Every structure is written in structure tokens, then in C-alpha cells.
């Protein structure tokens, strides 16, 4: 079988899940139900935010799912336009008094070119509205994400605000990221230990009112390059807010987190010592576990691993697994473009540790001892070798419900990964 072309999400998913990351925004899809159901289910599982009463949403436009009502376009609508459906759905949505109605065209609807702004003005005149008329056919999810966030900021935060000292926005989070909530909370906690307040996490778990405060941040911190960089540059142009990003990627593992915190504190003139102490405590906890695990098995040193993730995660993760745990990469495959700085650094790094063969190798073609990826990748490997351990760092998941939020970033993220790796390799011990 050949290597199949890219089946990762594109701009439609990026835009819908960017908007679904806002708490009190009504997201409407002008499109068929086939484009909707998956996104509605994903939004609800990644960011449950209502009482989950399917019976309340059994009527027209909802089809039993509370999220992303749609105009359920069919052939008649493609030929004659979706105006009639929009005329019916918009007042229904407006009745719930959302802070914003965001309407997104499906690829098919984008071709027809319904005049969404006019219809929004006419049928939802009392609610702020934005229209994302094209999310970019086959363009990366990050493109759709960025365009959607720009649209809502343009609508809700039209003007620059005076910068509030020691405040930052976190950029690059999407509810499509696995463990986004715990990861954002962990960075918020560590930054608070540095005396830095997180103003907004674009666009994951915020309200429309939070968005209005985005221009007031002193600095925009790009955590995930793929989803945050272009947005950060746009915010810098629009509001003059300076931008920080680490070419090494996100703060995954102890060393990367320490570097990241020190760099942020240097920019903001803040003191990182308390946060670094927190990381030290985490290192001690990690050591206590690793020294016992290693004493009887020598592991995790020498254990092999595979990673499939965006470059901003894969780069620091690979480096940390190699340097901190002594593990050997068999496959490191990116789910984002290989031309980002973090991707280039990763490739050079793999060369430098004599693991060049791992670069962009499909994990499913290898038999690692542990795989850090999405659930499909893990399951595909486990279907060949059932004892391979897996850590779900990407979407989709196997359906494990994280009642307690988990982090992949910062001190808590490092400890979570250590825990998963130790227990995942226990069969080898």
C-alpha cells in the first residue's frame, strides 16, 4: 500500500473548533449534517460545557447534538441558495442570547456564496455576528483556526487597549489539542508563580468578554507555533503587542519548561525563582519514581519510542525523552508542516544523535516499546504488537474521559508523561 495523502484536519475543523472553544458563542455551520456531526461530537467531548440534554436538541438544526447547529444543506439549497434555511435558523439561535453568533460555511456552501453578512444583519440584528465564509479548502487546520480567531477578535476587540503590566495571552491552544485544558491551567499556574497573569487563552475556554481584553496584554506568548504564530504576528500588527515564541517548541519536559519560563520572565521583567523551585520539586518527585523503576530494570534508558505529533510538541518531547530519560527514537513523524523552525531543529537534532532514520518515519511501520501519538496510531501499532504501550498526546483519543485535567506541558505535564512511561514500560521491567 502507498503512503496515503494527508488525512489530517483542514481549515474547516480548525475554524469550527476555534469558535467552539469560546464559552458563550453560538457556532452555526452553514452546511450539510455530514460536515457537522463529527465536529459537534468532537467539540462536546473536548470541551463539555453544558448539561448534556440531547432531548433539548432533538429538533430542526440540532439533530440531537447540542453543539454546532447547522442549516443541513442539501441539493436544493446548493441550487437555490441557503437563504431560506438561514432565515429560519438565525432567529432560533439569537433567541438564546449568545454573546456572539459565528457562522461558518462548509466547503460546499463556500462555493455557492450566500451573502452571510447580509443575512446575519437581517435575521439576527440584535446579536453581534461574524461570518467565516471560507475556511480554506484543504489548507491546514491552523489556517482555519487563525482566520476564525481573527474574525471574532476583529468583531469583539476592535480597538487597542492600554497594556496591563505583567499580563500575557497564551496563543496556539485549540480545544482540538488533547489535554488542552490541563496544559493551559499548568502554564497559568507556573506563570502566576512568576507574578504573571494570563489575560486570555486564545481560543480555548474563554468567554467573548475575555476576548475583548486580548489587546490589553503586555505580551503574547506563542505556545504552539502551528496555531499561534500567525495569530501572534497579526495581533502584533493590529495592537502592537509584542510576541514571544520558543524555536524549540512548547514547554514539554523540565528543561524546556525552565528555559521557557526564564525567557518569558526576562521579557516581562518578572522573577522566575518560585516557579523554578516548583519545577525542582517536580524533578525530585520524578527522580524518586525513576530511580526505583530504573533500579530493577535499567529502564527507561534504552527503551525505544515513536512520536506522531505537531512539531511544536514533537521537537521538545523527543529531545526530553532522549536527554532526560535516555530513550531512543525509532520514528518521529510530524502532523504539521516540516518547514517550521521547531521541525528543522528536530531534524537536525535527530541527525546529531545518530537517529536520522527516525525522521518522518511512520510509527506504524515500526515496533517501538512505547508510542506517543493519537489513539489511531497507537491502536494500529498495538494491533500488530498488543503489548506496545501508548500515550495519547494527540486527537483522536480512545475515549478515556479525563475527569481530572491532565497536562502535557510544564511540571505537571512532565510528571504525567513520566508516570505514563514508567507504567507503560513496566512489562519490560
Amino acid at each position, binding site marked *: 500500500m502507498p503512503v496515503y495523502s494527508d488525512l489530517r484536519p483542514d481549515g*474547516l475543523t480548525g475554524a469550527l473548533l476555534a469558535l467552539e472553544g469560546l464559552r458563550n458563542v453560538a457556532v452555526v455551520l452553514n452546511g450539510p449534517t455530514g460536515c457537522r456531526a*463529527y465536529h459537534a461530537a468532537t467539540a462536546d467531548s473536548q470541551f463539555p460545557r453544558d448539561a448534556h440534554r440531547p432531548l433539548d436538541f432533538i429538533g430542526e438544526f440540532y439533530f440531537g447534538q447540542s453543539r454546532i447547529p447547522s442549516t443541513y444543506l442539501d441539493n436544493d439549497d446548493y*441550487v437555490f441558495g441557503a437563504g431560506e434555511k438561514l432565515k429560519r435558523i438565525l432567529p432560533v439561535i439569537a433567541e438564546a442570547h449568545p454573546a456572539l453568533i459565528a457562522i461558518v460555511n462548509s466547503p*460546499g456552501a463556500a462555493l455557492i456564496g450566500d451573502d452571510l453578512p447580509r443575512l446575519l444583519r437581517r435575521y439576527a440584528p440584535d446579536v453581534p455576528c461574524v461570518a467565516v465564509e471560507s475556511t480554506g*479548502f*484543504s*489548507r491546514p487546520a491552523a489556517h482555519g483556526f487563525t482566520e476564525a480567531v481573527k474574525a471574532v477578535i476583529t468583531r469583539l476587540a476592535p480597538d487597542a487597549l492600554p497594556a496591563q503590566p505583567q499580563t500575557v495571552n497564551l496563543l496556539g491552544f485549540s480545544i482540538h489539542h488533547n489535554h488542552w485544558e490541563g496544559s493551559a491551567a499548568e502554564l497559568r499556574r507556573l506563570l502566576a508563580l512568576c507574578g504573571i497573569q494570563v489575560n486570555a487563552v486564545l481560543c480555548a475556554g474563554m468567554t467573548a468578554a475575555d476576548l475583548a481584553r486580548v489587546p490589553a496584554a503586555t505580551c503574547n506568548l506563542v505556545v504552539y507555533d502551528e496555531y499561534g504564530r500567525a495569530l501572534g504576528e497579526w495581533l502584533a500588527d493590529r495592537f502592537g503587542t509584542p510576541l514571544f515564541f520558543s524555536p524549540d517548541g512548547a514547554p514539554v519536559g523540565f528543561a524546556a519548561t525552565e528555559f521557557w519560563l526564564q525567557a518569558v520572565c526576562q521579557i516581562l521583567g518578572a522573577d522566575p525563582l518560585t516557579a523554578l523551585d516548583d519545577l525542582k520539586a517536580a524533578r525530585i518527585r520524578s527522580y524518586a519514581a525513576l530511580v526505583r523503576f530504573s533500579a530493577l530494570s535499567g529502564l527507561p534508558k534504552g527503551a525505544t519510542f515513536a512520536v506522531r505529533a505537531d512539531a511544536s510538541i514533537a521537537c521538545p518531547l523527543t529531545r526530553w525523552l532522549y536527554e532526560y530519560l535516555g530513550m531512543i527514537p525509532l520514528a518521529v513523524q510530524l502532523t504539521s508542516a516540516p518547514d517550521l523552525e521547531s521541525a528543522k531543529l528536530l531534524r537536525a537534532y535527530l541527525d546529531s544523535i545518530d537517529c536520522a532514520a527516525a525522521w518522518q518515519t511512520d510509527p506504524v511501520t515500526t515496533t517501538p516499546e512505547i508510542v506517543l501519538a493519537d489513539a*489511531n496510531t497507537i*491502536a494500529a501499532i498495538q*494491533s500488530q504488537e498488543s503489548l506496545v504501550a501508548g500515550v495519547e498526546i494527540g486527537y483522536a483519543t480512545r475515549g478515556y474521559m479525563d475527569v481530572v485535567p491532565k497536562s502535557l506541558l510544564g511540571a505537571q505535564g512532565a510528571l504525567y508523561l513520566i508516570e505514563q512511561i514508567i507504567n507503560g514500560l513496566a512489562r519490560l521491567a
Partner: protein
Amino acid sequence: MKQIAIYGKGGIGKSTIAANLSAALALKGARVLQIGCDPKHDSTRLLSNGTAITTALDYLRHTRPDERHLRDVVHTGFKGVHCVEAGGPEPGVGCAGRGILSTFELLAQLGLQSVAYDIALYDVLGDVVCGGFAVPLRRDYANAVYIVTSGEFMSIYAANNILRGVQNYDSSETRLGGLILNRRGVEDEDERVIRFAEAAHLPIAATFPRSDQFTRAERLGKTVVEAFPTTPLAGAFGALAHVLLNSGPYVPAQPLADDDLERVVLGSSTRTVNPYRHRALSQPADATPQPALTPVPQLTARYLSKSVRQRDPLQGCAFAGAVHTTLHIQDAITIAHGPRSCSHIAHQTFTSSARRALTKYGVSLQHQFEPPLASSDMSESVVIFGGTDELESAIRAAATSHPPVIFVVTTCPAGIIGDDIQVVIERLPDVTAHTRIIPILTDGNINGDYSQGLITACLKGAAALLDPDVTPEDDTVNIVAEKNLANNTEANFRVIHDLLAALGLRVNCRFIRATSVDELRHFKRGRLNLLAYDDAYGRTFRDYLAEQHGAVFASAAFPVGFHETVQWLHEIAAFFAKTEQVNAIVAQHRTGYEALVENLRPALAGKRIFILTYGHRLDWILQTAFDLEMEVLKVAVLNYAYDDRFFSRFEGRFAVELNYAPEQRNGDIQALQPDLVLSNFMLGVPEGVRGDIIPICPDVGFHSGLLLAERWYRLLKAPVSEGWRSDASLL
């Protein structure tokens, strides 16, 4: 049949010329069809006494698929000319090009291609602006193209663009009949057109002068040919009709570059029509005998999902349904022709059932986590300029592994822009030499819902592989219409497989799940076919395979519950003359079943249940309830996309309400006071009521109902309401 497409700039007089030509052709005794491909639907008005006819798109919009007939959209006009108008949206909304595509699809589905015409004229709006307006240029349609132009530069410019459109479709064929000059009285008119014709190597097939006879005839609602049959103008149409009937010679399209065009050339009352009215015209007494409208509809028009048939809102899209089917033909590759979002969604929903099955049943199929799915990755520019090149690249990439079959499944954007998949396939003789390419034109949800996609993939995809000459083998069965997205499908198959094995039977082919091109090719080795679900979807598969392929089916679907399993085994055993094995199998399970019933009955006897369900087959639950001496207060059946036929062998022993509205539920619960509410979803059940979930796709086998009853027993011991539920108020 000759098929002539008449193109030209908007307002140049195409419709008038086409209608006059049709009239002239009919006067020569030809059986003529004229199809107007213009949203303003006035192409055939002059053939119909100036009146409007029902447009195909209005008909499509307002008529259930199973009630459609060709005679409702094909109207008879002057001298028996058959007239069709595509119709379309109001200016500025919707997609008229998509409308043309839909019209041609409708006419094909209704069997127009099987009607015996001598000649068909396609009168097409303006330029070849998109795939929709290019439909008449496709190989299946026009074998000759004429372009109407005046001497105005923009008209000639449009004609040149049309040549480009024709050239895009014709790599080797020649089918340009030439120009038809319809004079507008501009200066230097004939010379301009002659210069253009010479430069583009085109003949001028006819020249029509400006004449008030056109206007006068139009006022009468007639063509010149009908109103003034003895005039030279009518004679000119007769002469052109003669040319059309006697073919060619045709020439290739050789459009000029824009600069050359400028140098060559410049070197130089309609009536309001009813938007929707059913009114077939009566045939005039002196009409040319026309072919009878006894069409042979396409298979896709005969086998329809419930939602498509009833024009319900479409749940899911046919594209995803088709992809989820073809992905189960494991040595084939499926290419999603569309933007990546379509393949991503199809991939995620396909793998989600595998993930759920892995979690719940420990069943792991590698194929389901890495399915052979590729995307043509349609980009925005492709959407504007057509996506056939990208599709060709995707097919070539897939073909490098030499799969026996590549399926191309189309999405909404592909359908809207009207990419012609057949043209792409014809461009790939080196690929088709070793790999069969099968297009499945679902066009996203344009051709129906998810369920329709499953059907279309069967009709157009898998069934195309079946070898009709294969003969049945002893002791073999096929499994038909399993639900590929249900998480217990594989577990159920294993139960069925074991029951069949106990009878000494083997499974030949699963139609269509976890199978191969070769297995499908040898489908007919299966002597008996076993339906997985007796619902609308399953019955459509069954009817198709029985009617079109002579497949023999067992009367019952996969058995759920003790009684059903016993009956099912008896029927299959009788078919294969293996009845002696059945009693032993049943006896083995009966003891356990009866012991469990005896155990549970004291606690459950007399308990009252209310059932609210999408599923239309409930006897497995009802049997259990009655065996346990429970009281069934009411069965409320909701509208369900996959079924519309409720029946039970226990009818009369309980109240039943079909098409139940979900909002009735709490009132019924209040009135009936059941001990237990059984439903496919439990959320929002009123305080003080115990409830439990019943699966829409139940586990098969002897003990299905009883396993649920064990849980009912435990639920009745549990507190009526758990503490956490009161925290809903905190949200």
C-alpha cells in the same frame, strides 16, 4: 441519436434559434428533444405556445424521489417536440451550474437515455463558465457543438471562450459544427465573424438576418418556423436542420489567444413564467410521432434510503456512507475527491467505531485504524478551475501499489463544480491497464444521506465487481448489510460465525465488511445470504441483490434473543439439510436461559415497563419481558433514519405509538407510572423514575434480552435517583 449543444453569449438569441431548429427538425420528421439549460427557463417557450412548463429543478425540489416520472418533466410541444427546461435559482443566489448538473442527473435517473430520439438539442446559457454549464459538452452528451454569435466583440469573445471549453474536453475528438451568425446589425458584422471563423478554422454553418418576423412570431408564442412557415427565414432554419441531421464535417476547437482575437476581430419580450406548475402539454394532432416515454430508470433511482425517499432532512452524507463501505474492501484504495476536510471526517468517523470496539470488546482490526483512504486535496484554486488534474495525481499515486481497484468517491464541492470523473479515467490508460477505477458519484450529500451512500457504494461499487458466472458452493453463506459503524459488529459477526460453524457452514463473503475484491468477485459462491438487519437499509440491500443478482436470502435477519435465534437456526439448517445439529445447539443454551429466567422472575414479575426507541425490532426485549411476566405498558417508536416498518409477533399485548414525538415522553411517564423506562437515551428522564439504555444495534444470540434483564434486576435494587444528578443545578 445526434446530440447537438448550442452555446453562445447570453442574449444572443440561442433559445430562439434552438427552438426554430427543433421546429424545423420536427417538420422533417425527426423525433426531437430540446433541453433548455438556462435558469430563466424560456428555451422551449416558443415550442409551447408561449407558455411555461414545469422545470426539472422545481420538480426535483417538490417531488419525492419514488414518485418522480419522466413524463412530468418532458413536455410535448410543436410537432411533438419533447421539451425540457432545467430552470434554476433566482439571479444572485444559489448555483445555476449545479442546477444543470442536477437536471441531467435527474433525467438520467428517470431513464431519458433509453428513449429513442433522432436528435437532441441542448440550449445552454452563455459561456462555459463552470462544470455545470459544461455538462452538455461531456462525452455522454453532445456529439456536435454549434456556437451562436453576432458580430459584436463580446459575443465573439464568448464564442472563443466556448472553443476553449470544448478544447478542454476534447483531447482528440473533433465535434465543432461551426458558428451560427445571428446578425445584430452592427457595423462590419459579417466581416468580423468571417475573420474570426477563418482564424479559428471554423465553418459558418448558417447566417440569420435581423428580422421583425422573430418578434412577431414571439408575440404569438411561436417560432418563425411555426408562425411563418413559408418565409425564407423559416427556409433557412430548414436548411440548417438538414445540415444538423446529416452531420459534419466537424472540426477541432482551435481558440485564439486573447491578443490574436482582438487583432483579428477589431482589426476591426419574455412572458413571466410560472416558477412551479405541473402541466404536461397535450400532443398536437399533427405532431411528428414521438417516442413513447417508457424509460428505464437507473438503479440508483430505484434503491433509495428512507430519508431520500421521504425527503426527510439528510443525516450525514452519501460520500461518507460510500467511503465507509469501500474502505472495507481491504485491497482496494478509496480516493476522496474533494477538500481534505471530507476525507478527514470520513477517516475519523470510520476509525471511531474501531476505537469503540477495541475499548468495549477488545476487538482490534489494524485495517480499521489505517484504512486505505487518500484525498485529492481539492484546493480553492481547484474549486475555481476544476479538480481533474489533482484527482489524476491522486489516482496515479494510489496506483503505484497496483491495487486491483481504486474507488473514486465524490464530495459536495466536486459535485458542485461538476468534475467529470470519467474524463479523468480515460486519461489514465496506463493505470487502467492494471487497476480498475470505479467512480462512485455521491457528490457529498447532493445524492443523499449516509444511508444512501451505503446503498450507492453497493450498487455502483461493490456490485460492479460481482462475477455473474460464479456458481454457488455447498455449505456457504454470505453476510449482507452489517452496520460498519456499530461498535458490536465484529463481536456479533463472531457469534454468528460460531453458530454457522456449529452447523458446518462457512462464510463466503461479507457484503460489505472486511472483505476483498476477490471475495466480492466470488460473491455468488454463497448459496444462502443472511441479512444482518431487517431495517430499511438492510431490506434495500436484500431487494437489490435478490432482484439484480438472483441472491437467495433467509427470511430472518441476524437473530437477537432466544426465540429468534432458535427460529433462525432452524431456517438455515433446513435450507442446508442440517436440521439434526440444531436441537443440540439449542438445548445447550436453553438450560442456561431458563435457569436465568427462573432466577430473575421473582424480582421482575409484575414490574411495568415503558419503552421509547428508535429501533423498530423489539421482540427480543418483549420476549424477555413476557418470559419474566413483566407488564409492557407502551412502546413508543421514534422516527428513525434507518427504518420505517415496525412489527412484532406480540402485537396486541401492549400499546404502541409510531412516529412518537420525543416531547411526549415525560407526560407519558407521568401518566403511566412505569417501574422502568427503557430507551436508547436516558438523559432528562424525570426525577423518581428508573431507566436503562437499550441498544439501537443489539448484540445477537440467545441471551441478548436476558443479559439486559439482569441489569434491570440490579437497577430496581439501586436508589431511584443518584446523588450526582442533583448537581445539575450547579451548572
